[in-house]
């Protein structure tokens, strides 16, 4: 404890001092969402308080670059006797806004909180839900560069919770660095770029959120006797594939094929594609979910689903089998993609999680942008005319345009 006055008088230092954090070091880059999971009392909140400067670390350093806002407790600064309106101003000023800045955001804050006419009532008349909604609304309108969130997304009703998550995603998109502590592990999987599991103040695992969450779940669900290590029997050392899980059920072989069963590596936009997984069961299961995720090379999730989300209730998984995930038309824009395949329990504990097990390239002769290419066509009525060839020349390298001009009469009609 860094207390100058107390240094000489040992009697007055706290009777029992516990070090809440030991050797915790990590970096969260600008614009990154960093999740922290762990049991109660593992030091998560202390860590956030240290980052925010509320607490000072006994040893070690914290470097923070940028305006920081901490949601340790929503509405912590509210005074019950004065109105919501007045509290918005005071809370905003506490979080570092000027009066004028709050003026310009006031309507957005009230709108977001959904408090409505209660805004001019004393805060003591609010329900606890309204209280936290207002607190969250103020905090996210501060425009922080770094936002620390402690377990606050668990509050409020389902609708508001969705709204919070959407807002957090928006902040992330705008380049806000997020550090958040939560017990809602699917939020970590969904929102975070990286995660850390703290146990008794020490870092147990750090890195890919799905993996960290899974390590944590494995531990929480009571140390399963580690069954035969996740089968290296497919023997191909996938470059950059990450794989983890308990190994009770294994995805032995995962391939991408066309509708006729031929293996694919590259495909055209709109092709019919099948993900095929050979499943090997070492310990029979009653609780199992198969999942597929498709990611763009930049890391953004194109699509993810699993049997549980689609309402398939697990019956019995007794022995080997094959799972086929059929996509009659994979409408993606040209680029490199990867597929994650997993089999796990319904609460997310992985039997076998294979991140990036498949990589494939989608080719296209049209240089459209984005990820998803809806089936579409252009139609023009009236006096709108195009000279299609010119457009094509601009969009593709010259030799190819030359080739296309000769061979295809209607190149601009995509499908």
């Amino acid at each position: 404890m860094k207390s100058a006055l107390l240094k000489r008088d040992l009697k007055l230092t706290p009777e029992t001092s516990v070090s809440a954090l030991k050797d915790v070091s990590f970096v969260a880059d600008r614009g990154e969402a960093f999740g922290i999971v762990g049991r109660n009392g593992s030091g998560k909140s202390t860590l956030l308080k240290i980052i925010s400067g509320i607490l000072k670390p006994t040893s070690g350093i914290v470097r923070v670059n940028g305006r920081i806002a901490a949601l340790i407790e929503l509405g912590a600064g509210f005074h019950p006797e004065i109105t919501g309106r007045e509290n918005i101003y005071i809370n905003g000023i506490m979080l570092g806004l000027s009066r004028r800045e709050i003026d310009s955001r006031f309507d957005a804050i009230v709108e977001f909180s959904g408090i409505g006419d209660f805004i001019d009532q004393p805060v003591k008349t609010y329900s606890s839900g309204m209280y936290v909604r207002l607190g969250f609304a103020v905090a996210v309108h501060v425009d922080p560069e770094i936002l620390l969130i402690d377990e606050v997304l668990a509050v409020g009703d389902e609708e508001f919770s969705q709204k919070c998550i959407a807002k957090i995603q928006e902040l992330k998109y705008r380049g806000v660095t997020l550090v958040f502590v939560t017990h809602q592990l699917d939020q970590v999987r969904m929102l975070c770029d990286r995660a850390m599991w703290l146990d008794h103040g020490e870092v147990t695992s750090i890195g890919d959120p799905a993996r960290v969450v899974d390590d944590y779940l494995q531990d929480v669900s009571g140390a399963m006797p580690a069954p035969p290590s996740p089968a290296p029997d497919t023997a191909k050392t996938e470059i950059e594939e990450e794989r983890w899980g308990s190994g009770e059920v294994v995805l032995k072989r995962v391939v991408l094929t066309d509708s006729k069963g031929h293996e694919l590596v590259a495909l055209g936009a709109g092709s019919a594609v099948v993900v095929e997984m050979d499943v090997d069961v070492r310990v029979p299961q009653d609780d199992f979910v198969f999942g597929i995720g498709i990611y763009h090379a930049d890391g953004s999730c194109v699509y993810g689903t699993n049997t549980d989300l689609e309402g398939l209730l697990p019956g019995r998984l007794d022995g080997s089998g094959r799972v086929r995930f059929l996509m009659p038309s994979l409408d993606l824009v040209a680029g490199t993609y990867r597929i994650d395949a997993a089999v796990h329990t319904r609460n997310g504990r992985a039997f076998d999680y294979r991140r990036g097990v498949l990589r494939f390239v989608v080719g296209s002769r049209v240089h459209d942008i984005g990820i998803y290419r809806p089936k579409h066509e252009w139609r023009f009525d009236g006096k709108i005319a195009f000279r299609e060839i010119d457009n094509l020349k601009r969009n593709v390298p010259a030799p190819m345009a030359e080739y296309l001009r000769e061979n295809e009469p209607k190149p601009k009609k995509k499908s």
Partner: protein
Amino acid sequence: MNELATLYRYRQLLAALTARDLKARYRGSILGFFWSLANPLLLLGVYTLVFTRFFPQQVVTPYPLFLFAGILPWTFFSAAVLESTNSIAGNAGLIKKVMFPAEALPLVVVLSHLVHFALALPILLVAMGIYAAMGQVTISPTIALTPFLMLLQTIFVAGVAMTVASASVLFRDLRDLVTNLMQLGFFITPIIYLIDRIDSRLLRALLRLNPMTPFVVSYQDVLFFGRLPAMSDALLMVAYALVSMIGGIFIFGRLRDTLAEAI
């Protein structure tokens, strides 16, 4: 003077919190602000009765006006210091859950009591006007010095408030100590009597050691007696204000980092 720069940045916060404090205090009460006057007025009534009816000797006239001039600054001092002992512990939520400049808390207490003081002054002026109309006093231009006295006193009170606010988080006993000292303080400050009328030279010297003495005496000078404060009192006020503020900043700075954990 890092702290002062920080405070300047937080001036909006101080203003907003002070306004909040005042609003929250009076919301829902019918008499509102007048409650903050109730105590000084009660004291005024009691001591006027005691010294004009029970022991009707040695007093200056009009005694109520003399009392009023001393009670107001004393109330400002004692209420602000007393309340600041609880200002940090009473706002544990802010210190532990929000990134919050802790020094704002005792200062807000001081500012809101300064507002009370300022709001009570017009009442004193009206009373002076009434006595002047009856020919018992003359209003002197020295009352224009009151704002300067208030400024010096506010700096002094703020320093003391910062000290007791931070120290009482670590030493809980300080609150009880301060409460009792304030009771004593009222009597060792020349509010209900004139220091010059005391026979014992030693006692006079001791009373002069009380840092509130030059402040109260100076208020009485400019408001009641219509004369300039003694040079010695003026120097003492400046000295006390500086020592108190520097000491307050120093002690608060030393303790600040432990506050969030100690509450």
